[in-house]
Every structure is written in C-alpha cells, then in structure tokens.
C-alpha cells in the first residue's frame, strides 16, 4: 500500500486502483449479503418465534449473521482478488518467480483494522448484554439467584407471581413439578400460553441440560443446584424437549414432548392431573429448590421455599394472551 512501483502485476494498476476495485466489490457483496441475511433468511432462523426467549435468540442470530457478512465478504473478496490478480503459475521455477514489493507494514491500515475490529466486538458485547438484561436472561439458565428477572419474580416460590415449573433431570427422564399446585409432579410438561413461566431446573444425579428447543430455553440441570430460566410461550402447540448435556447411556433418548396450551386448557389439565396423582403426591419428597439424596433414603431439605398454603396464583387472566 506504500509502494507505487508495480513490479509484478501485468495489467499495471496502481495501489489505489486495486483498492478501489476491491472496495467496490466488497461493498456490493456486503450490501447484497446483509440484506439477504437479515430480511430473507432472518425470519426463518432458528429457534423460531414460539416464545419471547426464542424471538430474542432469533433476533440475535439475525444481527450477528448480518454483522458477519461484511467480515466474511472482505476476506473472500480480497483473497479471491489476490488469487486472480497476483498469482504466478505454480510451474514457474523458484528462482524465476521474483519477489513482491517489500512491504513490511502500513501503520494506518493496521491501526484502522484494530480500531474497527475492537469497536465491532465491543458493540457486540454491549448488544449482547443489553439483550440479556432486557429479556430476563433470554431463556438461559441463570443460576440460583438470577440477576436478569421479569417482573413478578420472587426467589421465594410462595411469593412469585410467575408460574413455576420445576424441571427435574434424572437418568434418563425429565419430570416436571408444579409447586403452586400442591407439588404435583408429572412426566409431561404442560405450560399455558401467554404466561411468564419460571423454569427451575435441577438434577437428582448427574449433569443434564434442559433444552426446550422451540421455546429457546436451555439450562443445565446440576445436582444440588437450582438453575432458573424464564420464557413466555405464545404459540399453542408442542415443545421439543431434549437433554443437551451428556448424561450417560441413554442420553440420546432423553427426549420428551411438552405442550403449550391455552390458559383454560391448562386449568383443566392441572385439575385432572392433580386428581390423577392425588394419591401419589404424599409419597414425594416435600417440594424444595434442590434434592440431594441422603444416606437415610430421604432428601436433603435446606428449609427454604415452603409450599404456598393458600390457593395457587394460577395463570394470568386470558386477556394477557396476545
């Protein structure tokens, strides 16, 4: 970029001409690519739009995908240009190739590159943090004491205005507990549409990872840890639930299907389920954030989160549904 004497290129263009040509190609390819990625591909990106968390993730995928286009385009356009313009036949004997211009660096170019990459990644960091903050953790497992929470959250289940679903991983099953409905435990996850749900994920044995694929929820299930994630499902339909952390022999088959139903259907379902499992509930360990098997066959009870004594808060009123 400093040398003006083209020792090599047969069509002898100046540095500036080369730069212009590369620049124009790059801009054209980038603009086309960015438009295509953001507007054409973007709306179809995973994980879809079945919940608020999934929508955030899809939006982030779109933004990052769009930002990636000019980066990839620059390298591809540049290397493609270099390969077509500055290439010597590979059969040329070594001593006849000659040397390129002895360019050892270019202060301005290097500084600009560093500045642009730094600004880009810092912007991405700010973007990611804002997304995490404004979306209650964007569906990720946020630990025992989440810092990004939706309104109505309370670490004490009894006071929480959210519907709490405790997801219990065990080799090789998921079970779901509804503390606000008498500690009901089922093998099928049913959640109402339009209501913010708090998934409290824990494990009885090894590490699992609760992945509700189309709800955009992923939270590791650790023994002795209560890992909380939030999401509001808005489309009635089924949920694909998988285990995303290797947990032993049947990890690959630790699959189940959950249901997102209307609030009215949820009420019906939960009443029926309570009736069905009524006789079993007393045999379950009392609801707790975590369950650590004890040597006496019982479960460790840290003495937190007693079951709410009053009537369950229930899902939000039907008007909350979009």
């Amino acid at each position, binding site marked *: 970029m400093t040398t003006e004497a083209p020792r*090599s290129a047969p069509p002898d263009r100046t540095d500036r001409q080369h730069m212009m040509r590369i620049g124009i190609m790059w801009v054209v390819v980038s603009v086309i690519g960015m438009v295509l990625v953001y507007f054409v591909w973007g709306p179809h990106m995973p994980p879809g739009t079945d919940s608020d968390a999934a929508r955030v993730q899809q939006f982030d995928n779109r933004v990052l995908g769009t930002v990636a286009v000019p980066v990839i385009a620059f390298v591809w356009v540049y290397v493609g240009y270099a390969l077509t313009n500055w290439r010597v036949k590979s059969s040329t004997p070594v001593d006849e190739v000659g040397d390129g211009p002895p360019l050892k660096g270019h202060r301005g170019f290097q500084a600009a590159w560093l500045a642009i990459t730094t600004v880009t990644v810092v912007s991405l960091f700010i973007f990611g943090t804002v997304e995490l903050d404004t979306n209650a953790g964007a569906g*990720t497992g946020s630990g025992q004491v989440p810092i990004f929470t939706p309104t109505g959250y309370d670490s004490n289940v009894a006071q929480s205005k959210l519907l709490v679903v405790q997801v219990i991983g065990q080799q090789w099953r998921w079970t779901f507990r509804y503390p606000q409905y008498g500690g009901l435990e089922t093998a099928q996850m049913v959640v109402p549409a339009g209501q913010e749900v708090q998934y409290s994920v824990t494990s009885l044995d090894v590490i699992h990872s609760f992945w509700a694929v189309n709800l955009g929820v992923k939270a590791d299930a650790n*023994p002795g840890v209560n890992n909380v994630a939030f999401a509001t499902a808005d489309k009635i339909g089924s949920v694909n639930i998988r285990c995303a952390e290797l947990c032993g022999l049947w990890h690959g088959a630790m699959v189940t299907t959950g249901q997102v139903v209307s609030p009215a259907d949820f009420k019906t379902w939960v009443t029926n389920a309570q009736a069905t499992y009524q006789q079993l509930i007393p045999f379950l360990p009392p609801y707790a954030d975590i369950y650590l098997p004890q040597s006496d066959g019982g479960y460790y009870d840290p003495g937190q989160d007693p079951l709410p004594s009053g009537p369950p808060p229930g899902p939000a009123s039907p008007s909350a549904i979009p």
Partner: protein
Amino acid sequence: MAMDTTAPPAVDKAGNPGGPPAPRAERPWWLAPNLLLAFVGAAAGYALGHMVGNWIAHTYQQVQGEGDNNHALVLGYLFATFGWLAGIGALNYPFQKLFGYAPPTEAEGAHERKPTLRSYFSYTLDHKVVGVQYLVGMLVYFFVAGLFAMAIRSELLSPTRHLLAPGTYLEVVGEHGTMMMMMMTSVILGPFGNYLVPLMIGSRRMAYPRLEALSFWITPASFIILLSGIIVGGFPTGWTGYAPLSIEAGQGEDAYLVAFGLMALSMIVGGFNIICTVINYRAPGMTWSRLPIFVWSMLVTAMLMVLAAPVLVAATYMSLLDRTVQTALFDAQHGGSSYLWENLFWFFGHPEVYILALPGFGIALELLTVFARKPLFGYRTAVAGMVGVGTLSFFVWQHHLFDSGMNPDMRPVVMLTTELISVPTGIIYLVAIGTLWRARLRLAVPILFVLGALFNFLIGGISGVFLSDVPTDTVAHGSFFVMAHFHYTIMGSLLFAFFGGIYYWLPKMTGRQLDQRLGKIHFWTLFIFFNSTFLPLFAIGELGMPRRVFEYEKALQSLNDWVSISAYLIGLSMLIFVYNFVKTMFIDPRPTEPVGNPWGSRGLEWMTSTPPVAYNFAHVPTVVSSPYEYGTGARPMAYIGGEPPGVPPQHEGVS
C-alpha cells in the same frame, strides 16, 4: 548433549581431575533399553500395580459391592507407564544422577553421525529424531481417532439406533473426542516444533533433550491406555469427563483420566523444553524481532501448555481420587460440587483450544511469506496478536458454562473477554491480507493448505462469535453447532496447516518430496468434503440436535446422511495422503540428489544440509537479517560459524 571435543576431564576416585575419560562399555543389545524392554516393563508394571491395588483395596466395601477395583486398575496403569519409561531408558539418567554421574559425553565425530533405523525406535536425545517419531506417532493417533469418527457417522446415518448399542456409541464418541483432543494438542508442536525450532533459531541442540524425548515416549503409553479403556467398558463421558457422571462411570473412566493426565504431563515437559530452548539457545543475532513467526507461535503455545496443563493434571488427579479413595470433591451431597470439575477442566480446556489453534496460525503465516515472496506484513502486530490470544485465553473459560447456572453475574464479563479475543485473532487475517497484497503468489500444495486453513478458520471464528453471545449461545450450546464450530477451528485450521507443514517441510526432514499432483488431489478433495461435512452440521445443531446423541428427529435424517457420506469421502481423501506418504517415503527409490530448498525460502532451517546433520550446524550460526526479507536485497539470513568479514559485530543474548 555435548558437542565439543574437549570432554570434561575425567576424575579419579579422589576427585582430582586428570587422565583420559574411560570409554563406556557398549552393552549388548538385549540389555540396552529398547522398545521390546519397554513393552516387557509395561506388562510387568501393570501386573505389579494391579497386584498392589488388589492387595490394598480388596476388602473395601465399594470394591466388593461393585466388583470394580479402580485402585488396582489405576495403579496398574501408572506402574505400567513407569515400566514402559524404564524399559525405553528414560529413567536411566535420573537414576544415575542419584549417584552423581554426569551425562555421558558424545564421542568425536558425533557431528557427522546419521540416525540409524533403530534410533527412531529408541529414547534418543536428537531433537530431529524425536520430531520424526512425533510425526509418525501423530499420524497414527490421528488416523485411529479418525476411524472412530467414521463409526460415529455410520451410526448417525439413521435417526434411531441401528448399528451400535447406546453404550458402544458413547464409547466410540468418547474415544474419538478424547484421542483427537488430547493427542492433537501436540500435532504441530510435537513434530515440527521439536524438529524445526532449533534449526530456525540457529541452535545445535535443545535445552532439555531428555525431557523432549520423555514428552514423546509418554504419548504411546497414553494412547495405549486410552484405547485399552474399551476393554474395560469404555467411558461414557465424552472428552469433557463431566464430574458426577465420571464418578459413577465404570472402569473405562480410569483409562480416560490416567491417559489424559499423562498427556497433560507430556504437554508440560514438551512445552517446558521448547520455552527454555527458544529463550536461551537463540544464535547470536537472532533477536526477538527476527524470530520466525512459527517459532513465536511455538513459544506462545508452549507457554499455554506449561501453564494450563497443570490444572488438567490436578483435575484428573482429583477425579481419580473421587473414584478411588472416595473423596467427595465433585459430589454435592458431601460438600463437593460438580462445578468444581467444570471450572478446573475448562480453565485448562479453553487455553487448550488455543494450544490447538496457534500452531496453525504460525504455519500459515510462515508459509505465506515464502509463497507470496514478500516480507511478513506487520511482524510486530502478528507477534502481539499471538501473545494477546494466548493471554486472553486464560480469561474466557466460563463461556463454556453460560447455561450452567454458575456465576450468572459473570456472564457479561466473560462475553466481553470472549469477544475481545477475536481482535488478536483478527490480526492473523490482517497480517495474511497485508502479505498477500501484490504478492508473487505460487499456488503450490503447501500454500493451498494454508489458504484452506484460513478459509476454514474464518468460518470457525465467525461461528465462535455466535457462541460468545449469551442469547445465541443458548441455542447453540451443547448442540452440533458447537461441534461443527470446533471442527472448523481444529480440523479445518490446525490439521490443514499440519498437512501444509508436511508437504512443505518433509523435503527438509527427509530429502524426499511428496508427489505434488497427488497432493493437489488430496487438498481439493479434503477441502471440499471437509466443508460439505461440517457446514450442514451448523444447521443440524441449530435445528435441535444435541451432541453425542444416537437418536435425532426424523426430519434431520437427510442432512445427517449427507454429512455421513461426506465424512466417508474425507476418509478416502486421507487415504490418498497415506498412499502418497507411503509411496514417497518407503517405495520410491532414494533420490540421487536430496531435494534442497524446493520453495526458495530464506529461512535458517534451509541453510543446513538436507537432511540436517546430527548437530544441525557445523557451528552456531550468526544471524544477520530477518527470515522475511524478500525483495529487500538483504543478505542471506545467517552465516554458519562466527562473524564473516565485513559484518558488524553481533552480540550474544541480544533481544
């Protein structure tokens, strides 16, 4: 060791110097350390260790209850390793040292001696022999682990299980992952680092040749132990060995832990030697700003190995204790925590990722200048980039744990450090782009692989940004997206650079050049099928397929089948390489004239004979210019021996 003719004076019993050194008696071959003895030692060690373990633990409740005596197995593995190293001769000098013996000195004329076939199977102090041992070893490990990958892809041809039982599938996944991840840490530092670093810095030896040889001879032990895990049922934890599962797993887990720990040991001693050599054995005039960029990458890689691998040693050791003496470090119900393993493992594991990436960058930039015939663009920036990557890599490990529920407050910080690491990584592209500007580019086979590596790493790096952003990572974490991402960075970048290095430096190492036409076929098939294998895996992961599963949604079958078939074709492409390698090295007649410097490189490693003599250079060279002065009219990089007339005096130890 020694290279001068003035052997230290021998001493008599009273300690008075004087008299000629007594010649060492040559031992008969069956008493000298050799490979056979090493196997015998390993078998005897295993038997002894197993016996001791049984004696200690046969009354323990957990042993009687399960019938699994982990104590016996672990002690068996450790004693077997000890016996292996004793048999190969690695313990001779440490033992003699106890009695004060000085290292044996080399005889007159050792300088001209060529390594014999036998020395390639022995514990040797010649760094070039160790380099070749590493090269062959790494190829063997890579191809064995690659076969496991073929088995995985065969199982995934169908969405339900059809070929391997679930347990077998996990064994195969674990063996493939662990073997690749632990062995490939040394895939470039082992062969090329050990072979080329002294040649490139103008040294006649390594700083610690015994440690260097030790680092190689641990790898076969580690490899065999890892493979032997299959005999005792394999391990179900994949290469990450997450804790509560690894504690409850069967005996194969011991093999994983011991093998990985041993490999960490090999990394430590190998990296240790490289660091000491680069810092202290540079020729006069080889200043830090003239150090070849490949040597810089080796230095930073070695630094990461030496500082990160001890944490892995500690982690595997703790896990073994949990499995044997029943400590509760990873057991939440007894005051331990499964997070402890995740922290320790990834504190090693993320620097490891850069242990795997940096050598690839080093080879890429080193080769780019030669084939572009231009100086390296922004040399200092490139060095700063590598050091920056190395430093930052210690501060990002928690991005593997974004969803784990551990330290949610830390996530923005880790997101920042993780995204910042793409700045120094981007520098590699800055340097490559600047070097390509108006280049005189010859598309020979090595540079094809380098360009392929840069292409693949770009995709790997961009996909990494999706993993550093918490919301997008939530989709990708633990899915095939991650798996595709690190195959792009490791296989796409590191192994492409490794093959580029083989095509580039094999003429130097052996005087034979691989068939270039077959090389081009190898490159293009590998490049096309590599991308056709791993690009769809990004989509498969995003669409909801977790890693390490044998069952997936039926809708993903066509994509998975495409991937599997492409993976087989990668296998075929590798066979082309094997054919080319075997044909050139073993079948073709020895070339009458060794290939000298087929690429026209200025590098110091090309200034000695081909293949290099035992002590690399007749005398320590004097370096007078940078290796990348293409087109500047600079003098050749170095003179062998002292300063030539008319050259301004150089001082040793300059930096």
